[in-house]
């Protein structure tokens, strides 16, 4: 087995939790991890025709994309298979079929190359990838991971061994609420980017949509949890009322007011958590961090609170292999024992388990 602690260990990261096949190669340095190449193949176009992800189609697409994407990543990094020192793969959470395709590929590579295998938590990867972009993390930080499937607030003392989940959504994820509101407004799937586009032309204060779990009575139990289901319902009912009255729906104002409610709750709760825990660095990751209202409001509120805000570029916020390689590299640098070669995938993997 390769000497893990040799400087310059190359880690291959494989991500297949949803509809993107992501493969990346990183080099573990003494202090920082360097991204050599990141390759992504998406089956999004096939799913868009059906108005959503079809697990069976996603699994087959991963299967077909896996070998070419691995080859693409290796070629892009200018390395060969036998140069790899470790394999990291998403173990969960995500769709069972796609996860199984990725982990089978990773296990085969680990066995064939006789290198350690690390099963990695996808959600933690969304935060960890920022180390590749903006450099090593400080001792403590807060991470807000927001996507179509997740809305979680994490207190990070160590990105592999010290992640505490402060809160998460009790019902819909932020991106999911966007997709559902997009559907009720008659926008194509996925609705998020369309709402974002309309929202930029609208008045965010036009309609006062509710802020979930922000009432005084919720502060004891749910100070850091999110709820977007009531907001989604409020938008649906507001739109119905206008339709019933035969009025035109002011799409831009509805989109802007809805997006403002989501951004307001996410940033207010996150900044409050930073203040209460004495944290001065915030990382926002996950596909929903592409949302412009969230970015703008987070930037303004972090500046006001003296918190350094780190958001990776959008291509590293959507699902990718670099985020998984980043966690694998962090595990290698810490000398942590690898996962078992028969590691299971876990569609609802808890966030406090970073490795399996």
């Amino acid at each position, binding site marked *: 087995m390769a000497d893990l602690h040799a400087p310059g260990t190359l880690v291959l990261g494989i991500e297949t939790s949803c509809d993107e096949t992501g493969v990346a190669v990183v080099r573990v340095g003494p202090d920082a991890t360097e991204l050599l190449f990141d390759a992504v193949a998406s089956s999004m176009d096939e799913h868009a025709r059906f*108005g*959503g*992800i*079809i697990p*069976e189609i996603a699994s087959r697409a991963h299967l077909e994309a896996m070998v070419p994407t691995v080859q693409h990543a290796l070629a892009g990094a200018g390395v060969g298979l036998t140069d790899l020192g470790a394999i990291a793969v998403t173990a969960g959470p995500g769709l069972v079929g796609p996860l199984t395709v990725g982990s089978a590929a990773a296990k085969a590579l680990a066995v064939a190359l006789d290198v350690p295998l690390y099963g990695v938590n996808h959600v933690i990867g969304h935060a960890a990838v920022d180390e590749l972009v903006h450099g090593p993390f400080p001792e403590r930080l807060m991470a807000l991971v927001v996507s179509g499937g997740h809305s979680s607030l994490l207190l990070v003392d160590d990105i592999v061994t010290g992640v505490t989940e402060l809160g998460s959504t009790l019902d819909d994820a932020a991106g*999911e609420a966007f997709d559902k509101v997009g559907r009720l407004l008659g926008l194509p799937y996925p609705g998020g980017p369309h709402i974002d586009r309309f929202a930029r032309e609208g008045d965010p204060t036009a309609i006062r949509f509710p*802020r979930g779990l922000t009432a005084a009575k919720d502060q004891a139990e749910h100070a850091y949890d999110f709820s977007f289901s009531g907001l989604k319902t*409020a938008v649906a*009912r507001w739109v119905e009322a206008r339709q019933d009255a035969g009025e035109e729906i002011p799409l831009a104002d509805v989109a802007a007011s809805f997006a403002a409610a989501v951004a307001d709750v996410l940033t207010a709760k996150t900044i409050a958590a930073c203040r209460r825990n004495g944290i001065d660095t915030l990382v926002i990751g996950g596909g929903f961090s592409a949302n412009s209202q969230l970015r703008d409001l987070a930037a303004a509120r972090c500046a006001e609170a003296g918190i350094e805000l780190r958001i990776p570029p959008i291509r590293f916020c959507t699902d990718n292999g670099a985020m998984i390689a980043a966690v694998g590299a962090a595990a290698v640098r810490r000398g942590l024992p690898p996962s078992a070669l028969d590691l299971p995938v876990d569609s609802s993997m808890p966030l406090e388990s970073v490795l399996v």
Partner: protein
Amino acid sequence: MNETVVQLRDTVATRGYGKALAALLRAGDLVVLSGALGAGKTTLTQGIGAGLGIRGQVASPTFIIARVHPSTTGGPSLVHVDAYRLGSLDELEALDLDASLDESVTVVEWGEGLVEGLAEDRLEIAIERPHGAGRASDLAGPVELAHDGSAGQPDDDGSSGTRTVTVRGVGPRWAAIVLPVVG
């Protein structure tokens, strides 16, 4: 046809009714939930989960299509499916779940028109929420939250209003079962 209609005035009542339904559910049962966006399908499922005594937060399973909650009491698992993003669903087994449906209670949101053919016996639950705007959502004006992440005033969470829930037992399994009339 074994059918009952109940009125549930808020989310607490909806969860309570889910709990009452859970007392009737056993391994192998299929529950099909229908209702518009925001009707309370996930809320009702949260109640069923509480009644079954399962592990984990019952949240929307839309992203992963299905989430399996094992029992903490040796009873059946809860398999919570969201067919919202599925164009078709020939067989639930095609979801490749880590659980046997024979040994679980399976609750499918947005499953109407998709899953009825899967089981002769099933509980069909239609939830109707009030149509049109709730009160708080019509207020305009500055809305930003305070520094501590809380709203300055009590906030309608958008889920208010009485739900009308129609529960229909289909098949021999449900023919003689008395469906709960209140939570």
